[in-house]
């Protein structure tokens, strides 16, 4: 669930404007061994690894980026552009499985995925891909609290402290429906996948109650604001936490006591992919230890690739509780699942009520 830069605003516009053009361009050309069309999150790969793949295999990579799962989905579904490999998040993968859009993966052709990706990540993936048939984990992480040690009186350990009035105007919340509701749901001990109207009403009221204390609802800017001491507490993805701590040593990342979201972004191959074999080769390459470690160092999001973790040179990062938390120690961790159209609509409706209040 990668959300890094200000492209959030530009990408949708550009995507709409150029969807037709890029689709037209992508059908021409190709390397000596054909091509593979990849659709990934923005800034979610080390570009060098793409070049290396092209050199080693002679397969041309046509690379396209999206900024949210919701922007990616209609483009893939409509078939306006034909992709081979996509990297959606957990709940979106379950939606794509529901709509029969994904091809079953033949692990014999992707040995690195079997050998290098840790078993626990396949286990966690079962929440959205029950038989591990369709997806291969690429990046994962938790959603937690980043706080500035110099700006709080006591260590922050739980979501409830985001409702503490002494941090008024010092709290940054995530500006996305599921993540914002997840915080309020965990606070009240609900599942983050609940569609029970009464529970959602409680969560909504908690968010409305919190709103006067919130400095801003942000996505990417949480990094810069926390680095710049603009707020004491921010809700953030663990992958961003490593980067912000490098820039500002006063920052501390915690997984809240009440539990939180564990998310996984995974490679999938589309059912009507035009270059299935090349897609398998591409995923196999990305699962290679030396390539995965390159990507980890570039994007700082936790890798599920055990071989890559062994190759990390910095011992602090390799054993970092932020980058590689021992998930068995934290209770109430959950992964988002697809809530169905009605569930999504209900969440969006309630979120608008929070925002317009």
């Amino acid at each position, binding site marked *: 669930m990668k959300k890094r830069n*200000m492209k*959030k*605003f*530009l990408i*949708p516009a550009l995507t709409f*404007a150029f969807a037709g053009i890029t689709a037209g361009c992508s059908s021409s050309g190709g390397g000596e061994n054909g091509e593979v069309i990849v659709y990934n999150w923005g800034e979610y790969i080390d570009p060098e690894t793409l070049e290396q793949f092209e050199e080693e295999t002679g397969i041309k990579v046509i690379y396209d980026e999206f*900024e*949210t799962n*919701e*922007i990616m*989905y*209609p483009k893939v579904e409509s078939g306006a552009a034909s992709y081979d490999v996509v990297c959606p998040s957990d709940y979106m993968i379950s939606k794509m499985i529901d709509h029969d859009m994904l091809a079953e993966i033949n692990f014999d052709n992707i040995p690195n995925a079997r050998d290098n990706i840790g078993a626990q990540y396949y286990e966690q993936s079962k929440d959205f891909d029950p038989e591990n048939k369709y997806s291969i984990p690429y990046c994962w992480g938790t959603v937690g609290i980043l706080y500035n040690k110099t700006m709080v009186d006591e260590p922050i350990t739980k979501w409830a402290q985001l409702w503490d009035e002494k941090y008024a105007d010092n709290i940054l919340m995530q*500006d*996305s*429906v599921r993540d914002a509701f997840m915080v309020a749901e965990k606070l009240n001990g609900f599942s983050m996948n609940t569609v029970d109207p009464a529970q959602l009403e409680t969560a909504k009221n908690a968010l409305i109650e919190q*709103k006067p204390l*919130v*400095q*801003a*609802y*942000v996505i990417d800017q949480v990094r810069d*604001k926390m680095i*710049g*001491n*603009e707020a004491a507490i921010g809700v953030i993805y663990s992958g961003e936490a490593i980067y912000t701590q490098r820039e500002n040593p006063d920052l501390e990342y915690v997984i809240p006591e009440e539990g939180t979201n564990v998310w996984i972004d995974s490679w999938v191959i589309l059912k009507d992919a035009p270059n299935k074999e090349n897609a398998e080769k591409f995923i196999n390459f990305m699962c290679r230890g030396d390539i995965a470690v390159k990507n980890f160092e570039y994007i700082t999001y936790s890798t599920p690739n055990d071989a890559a973790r062994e190759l990390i040179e910095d011992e602090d990062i390799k054993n970092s509780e932020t980058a590689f938390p021992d998930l068995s120690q934290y209770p109430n961790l959950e992964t988002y699942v697809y809530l169905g*159209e009605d569930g*999504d*609509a209900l969440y*969006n409706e309630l979120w*608008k*009520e929070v*925002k*317009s209040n």
Partner: protein
Amino acid sequence: MTSEKSKWLSTPYVAWSIMFILIPLCMIFYYGLTDKSGAFTLENVAAIASAEHAKALWLSLLLSLISTLVCFLLAYPLAMILANLQVNQHSFIILIFILPMWMNFLLRTLAWQTLLEKNGVINSVLSFLHLPNINIINTPCAIVLGMVYNFLPFMVLPLYNALSKIDENVINASRDLGAGSIYTFFRITLPLSVPGIISGITMVFVPALTTFVISTILGGSKILLIGNVIEQEFTQASNWHLGSGLSIVLMIFIILNMITSAVFDKEGTGLI
């Protein structure tokens, strides 16, 4: 012969308009007036009446009206000064006003965020001088500031254009006949500059009404404008039908504004 030639020359523009204006517009109407199954419905347009949407629309109208008014009050005196300057001087001042527009709009808005933040540039300077800090970031004030800053040139240029076209002799005649400068301004200058005023108002009001970037960046996403609602329907909620329906409602306001300007600006003098 000439008509044949001009037809041929206009082909790229016609193709451009069809591809990037007409087709997208038709798609908005298609999505806005159908539901998920493709059946005709007015529900998406009527959704503007729901509490959250109406509130967002009302807030957008209010903030864009305030911004337009502030822009007008700032731009009119400036345009008058410019219109009275020597040719080489005024082109320099206009250049200064246009210069920021060479930078990306997003970057300029982000720069304002950096300036206005709690530990931002302005507050650091104020603290250094032991003056009280200003805390307008993430409030409607910051959004209005962002709108005024970004759209002010669009008000200055048509006003300047209209004012510089006023014949000097008309004003001299008025003074000759004994009118004071205030009376001359309200009876001669102001009425003659109406086309410029209307054009300036349109060019500020329309983008201010539909913006979602300024309210996200400077309002901390705490203030929901109608532009934000529509953006979220597309990027987060995947509900293109509702997003398009609300866009149609917004178009009504924009068309109303354009009709007004067409009525007042029959000769097109206000246009640059």
